């Protein structure tokens, strides 16, 4: 039912712009703030702020390579962050599948009854 992951993490990924940045990082594996800023409709400063929040939530980390700072996704943490939601989604998939089975059975039953009444 209600999922209770830690707040910092949810705040980090609840923001659509931040999700965009995180999404890009997942796709690219590793990137600098400038590279990311080239691909989003907001400023480098905004990207940097988003990166700090994501880093504080433990979703990404950084390493230095020469004069560049590269950001990358922490796959385990991301997995942990998305699992509660994925579980809720799976639960609904299961319920929808049951509704489908019940409704289709009821419909088939009604059709059989109609055919019996009017042969």
């Amino acid at each position, binding site marked *: 039912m*209600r999922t209770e992951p830690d707040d910092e993490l949810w705040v980090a990924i609840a923001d659509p712009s931040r999700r965009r940045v995180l999404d890009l990082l997942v796709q690219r594996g590793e990137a600098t703030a400038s590279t990311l800023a080239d691909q989003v409709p907001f400023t480098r400063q905004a990207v940097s702020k988003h990166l700090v929040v994501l880093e504080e939530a433990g979703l990404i980390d950084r390493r230095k390579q020469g004069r560049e700072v590269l950001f990358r996704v922490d796959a385990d943490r991301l997995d942990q962050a998305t699992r509660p939601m994925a579980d809720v989604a799976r639960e609904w998939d299961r319920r929808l599948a049951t509704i489908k089975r019940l409704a289709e059975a*009821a419909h088939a039953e009604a059709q059989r009854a109609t055919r019996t009444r009017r042969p």
Partner: protein
Amino acid sequence: MSTTDYEIERDILIEAPIEVVWRTVTEPDQMTLWFADKVDLKVEPGAHGSMGFGEQGGLVVVEDVEPPTRFSFRWNHPAGEEPTPSNSLLVEFTLAPEGEHTRLWVTESALGSIDRPDIDKAKYAEEHNHGWGEFLDRLARLHAERT
């Protein structure tokens, strides 16, 4: 207060007419077959009821009922409180005919528990709409491709 803000959307195509799907989704004795073990609920706007899951259970308040296309309720709010957008989960079912069949969508959302002005909240909800499920699906796929 939890800051669990999310929206999940899922859908399925059902090979039955919309009226049959509507009854399966909304009739309490049908709901016990796909949802809770015990359902005590009047399907009309504003009705208070309850659902039981084994030993656990909770209050449910019906929001919209528009046969045969829309049914929504709030749940998971603290006992003794009226449900609001910030203390409960909203579950919405939407039905639409697709040829002789029926498309059924469900969304479950928790919005508004993060403190922000109401005007932003509407925009926030708008931006969230349809975003989460896709985001998760894509992440899961990308994650699977890498491992």
